[in-house]
C-alpha cells in the first residue's frame, strides 16, 4: 500500500481538491478504504456481503419453489456454497436435496441426510449473478416425511 501525500502544493487558501492533490491509497486507519477500487474497498471495510435469507415454515411440498429472488445488482455465490448456512428445525426422514438454481439451471445443492438437520452443500464453481438474474431454491421432488422448518442464509458477495 502506498503512502497518501500532498503533491507539492501548500494549502494557502484553506481549500484542497483531494482528487488533484493526493495520490496513492488512504489507509482505513486514516479514514480511507485501503483500496483504489470499489470491490477492494468493500472487502477491506467488510461490507462486501450480499446475503439472502429466508425460511421454510412447515414441510415443503414436493418440488415447491421455496424462495425466488431477482437480483437488483451483480453478486456472486462461492463454489461449494462457502459460507452459506442452512439448518432444519426437524430432521429429514431420508435423504432430501434442495436445488439452487440460476435462471432455472441448477448450480448448487443442499442435501439433508436421513436424521440430519444440517445439509451438505455443493456447488461445482462460483456462480455470478447479474442484475435481472433469478435465484430460485426448489424443494426436493419427493416431499420428505419429516423435514420441516428450515432456515436458509445464502451467502453472496457483491461483484
Amino acid at each position, binding site marked *: 500500500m502506498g503512502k497518501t501525500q500532498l503533491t507539492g502544493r501548500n494549502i494557502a487558501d484553506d481549500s484542497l481538491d483531494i482528487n488533484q492533490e493526493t495520490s496513492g491509497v488512504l489507509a482505513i486507519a486514516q479514514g480511507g478504504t485501503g483500496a483504489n477500487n470499489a470491490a477492494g474497498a468493500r472487502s477491506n471495510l467488510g461490507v462486501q456481503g450480499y446475503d*439472502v435469507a429466508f425460511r421454510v415454515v412447515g414441510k415443503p411440498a414436493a418440488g415447491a419453489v421455496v424462495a425466488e429472488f431477482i437480483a437488483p445488482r451483480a453478486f456472486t455465490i462461492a463454489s461449494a456454497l462457502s459460507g452459506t448456512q442452512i439448518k432444519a428445525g426437524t430432521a429429514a426422514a431420508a435423504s432430501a436435496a434442495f436445488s439452487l438454481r440460476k435462471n432455472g439451471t441448477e448450480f448448487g445443492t443442499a442435501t439433508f441426510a436421513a436424521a440430519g438437520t444440517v445439509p451438505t452443500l455443493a456447488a461445482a464453481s462460483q456462480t455470478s449473478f447479474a442484475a435481472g438474474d433469478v435465484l430460485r431454491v426448489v424443494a426436493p421432488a419427493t416431499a420428505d416425511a419429516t423435514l420441516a422448518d428450515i432456515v436458509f442464509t445464502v451467502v453472496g458477495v457483491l461483484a
Partner: protein
Amino acid sequence: MLVVLPDYRAPSYTPPDSANLRLWYDASQNENSSNQPASNGQAVARALNRGTLGGYFTQTDSGKRASHVASPPSLDFPASGNGFLTSPTLALSSQGVMSFVGIIDTTGSSFTDYTPPVLFSRGGSGGINATGLSFNGGKLGFTWNDASETWSWTGGVTLPSNARCAVAGVVDASGATATGTIYCVTSALVTTSASMIFPGPQPLSGSSTTWDVGHDPFQDRHYRGAISHALLYTSLLSQAQIEEIAAALL
C-alpha cells in the same frame, strides 16, 4: 447487506387418499414467477403424483393463453387457443375406477356441449380414447369412449352460474356394470347418481396418457371459466371425502 425474503409456508391442506391421488393441479403452486406462462411449453404449474413432483403442466400450442386470477389463485380459461394445460404423461393402464375433482368458477361459462371443466384425456396407447367429465345439454356428466368407438355420456348435474363450486365424478367400471356419481358442491350439496354407463369391466385410462385441464383434444373443445384445482384419483372417493376437499379448497 442482507436481503430477507418472505417465508415460504407449506400448504396447509393434504387431500384425502393421497396414495391414489395421481394428478393434482393446484394453481396456487404455479411455477412461473409471474404466475403466467411466458412462452409455449414453459412450466405452468407443478403436477403432483402421490405427493411427488411428477413434472409440470404446460401450454404447448400457439394461441390465446389462460390468464392468471389473483385471488383465489386460478387460471381463467378463455375457451380458445392454447387456453388449457397438459399434464405430464401418466401410466394408468387398466384403471377401472377413477375419481375426478375440480374447483372451478363458472363465471362466463355457458356449459357448452362436450367441453370439460376439469381433466380430460384422449387416452394414448392402451385401448381407451376418451375419459373425463364434460357437459351435455347444459349438465355436467361423465364421458367415456373405448377404442371401438363405443361412446357414451352419463350423469347430469346442473352447475350454478357465475359461482365458484367443487365438481366431482366418481366412476367404477371395474365390474360387469359400470356405475358412477356426479357431484356439485357449493353451500348446498347437489348430487346425482348415474345409472349404468355401459357394460364393464373396462379400463378408464391408457397406458401412456396425458390429461388436459379444461380441454378435450378432440375437435379442440375448450372450457370457459376459471379452474383453481383439478385432481385425479385412481380410487373411488366417498361423498364425505369430496365434501372434505370442497370444504378445504373452495
